[in-house]
């Protein structure tokens, strides 16, 4: 009976199994990237880049319809272009990086919606904006899993410089010449994970599986390796709960997944080790030394 509730949707329906596999891969790859995005105070940058992917995917759609390869390529090119252009503008003008990113992503978003609506239907637009986690085909799953594997490999290789780049960039530059490589490799990881996430959750919510678990885990963990572990755990749990909720209550899947992780965030915010209630409770007592 209980088993039916928790497992039957996945044992009976292959589209639910595919959705679950896609979400597991996203949680394993995109969430650790999201942790670094948060620690580099780039959470909103990630959000802006997610929006910037839309026109690229839309141009791919324009040429090839709902083709996985064309939309992926378009999304990666557009995401990288906006990331690099925003960095260039902030280095060479008075405009800060956040403002220049906002400018680029607003232009991109408007352009993307325009392109899709001139050639496609509203359903196509919804597809791009909110993803199709219940309609992932084999190619899409292989793509998402491939991106997750590559992300873990790159993160493992560049872990130490990446931590230092967040913590104390001047020290990294003083001991190593890896700083520019680390920065650009990381931006690339952000873009390809957003594109991977976009097939499942759409451009608007692909950032959700990156930032929300990271932010929630920050209330539990005091060092970065624990932080990454907890964030991945929360992402897996949230994805599973979201899929179940969406199946049983017949609600949009992408929103259910992001909302489930969001619920875990609120719980962590309240009762996590560094959460609001815990800190309040702790402030009423202290150790002897």
């Amino acid at each position: 009976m209980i088993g039916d509730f928790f497992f039957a949707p996945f044992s009976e329906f292959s589209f639910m199994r595919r959705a679950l596999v896609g979400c597991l891969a996203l949680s394993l790859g995109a969430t650790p990237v999201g942790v670094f995005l948060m620690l580099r105070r780039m959470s909103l940058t990630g959000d802006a880049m997610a929006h910037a992917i839309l026109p690229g995917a839309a141009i791919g759609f324009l040429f090839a319809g709902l083709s996985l390869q064309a939309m992926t390529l378009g999304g990666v090119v557009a995401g990288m272009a906006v990331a690099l252009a925003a960095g260039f503008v902030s280095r060479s003008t008075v405009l800060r990086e956040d403002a220049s990113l906002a400018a680029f992503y607003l232009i991109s978003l408007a352009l993307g919606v325009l392109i899709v609506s001139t050639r496609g239907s509203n359903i196509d637009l919804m597809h791009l904006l909110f993803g199709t986690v219940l309609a992932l085909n084999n190619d899409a799953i292989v793509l998402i899993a491939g991106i997750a594997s590559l992300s873990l490999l790159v993160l493992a290789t560049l872990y130490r410089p990446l931590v230092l780049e967040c913590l104390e960039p001047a020290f990294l530059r003083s001991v190593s010449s890896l700083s520019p490589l680390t920065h650009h490799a990381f931006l690339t990881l952000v873009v390809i994970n957003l594109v991977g996430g976009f097939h499942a959750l759409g451009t608007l919510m692909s950032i959700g599986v990156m930032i929300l678990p990271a932010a929630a885990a920050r209330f539990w963990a005091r060092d970065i390796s624990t932080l990454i572990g907890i964030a991945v755990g929360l992402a897996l749990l949230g994805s599973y709960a979201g899929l179940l909720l969406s199946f049983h209550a017949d609600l949009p899947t992408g929103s259910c997944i992001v909302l489930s992780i969001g619920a875990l965030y609120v719980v962590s915010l309240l009762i996590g080790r560094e959460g609001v209630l815990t800190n309040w409770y702790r402030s009423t007592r202290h150790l002897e030394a």
Partner: protein
Amino acid sequence: MHDVALEFVDLTLGYESHPAVHHLQASIPRGALVAIVGPNGAGKSTLLKGVAGILAPLAGEIRLQGCARKEIAYLPQIVDMDRSFPISVFDLVSVGLWRELGTLGGLNRQQRQRVSEALAAVGLASFGRRSIGSLSGGQLQRALFARVRLRDAPVILLDEPLTSVDVETAHTLLGVIRQWHAEQRTVLAVLHDIDQVHQHFPHTLLLSRELVAFGPTRESLQPSNLLRARQLTEAFDEHAHACQRHASEAA
């Protein structure tokens, strides 16, 4: 003639083509413990940035003898560190071993032992597992000294390392500096406390945009030199006043 570690050859360093260090000519012997002393705005920090390779010379050059740029350990006055970052004191200090570990290497037992020893040497033996956000300013400075210690650097640059620490911390850190000196490392430290300089630093470079004196501390810091250092910055101030007058006339 001493073995030379660092040579400043007609060195001019500055910002937006305004010189902060002007035509400096000096040779730092290997293994010397040198205090860099001078009024505010004398170019002391600028000189260290130049040696660390953060600031390129406007003219002249800095010659490093038998030491690569990346081997120099530089501790800036204000460390640009995200102190809310979730990392333990032990992990922060252990990146001092970067040259041995590189990007991928993990710490073996002997290296962990050395990190613990470095923490103990600055009086932070029981702080390894704390997160860096829980450290006070003085404790963080101790941790950064422990990290410099692990870098095993032939040349060490310290920018006002004792300015915002209490007497006890200063005592501990001066002990670490003396040990570096005993190990034949070349140490350049910007300091403001003249008594500390007299007590602990055999050599002093008195800087006031231009070189005023470099040699044994007692000679460098004699009253006539200190007076000259003050006059040079006063001259510098007058110049600044002239520029302001000019600007207000124009306006």
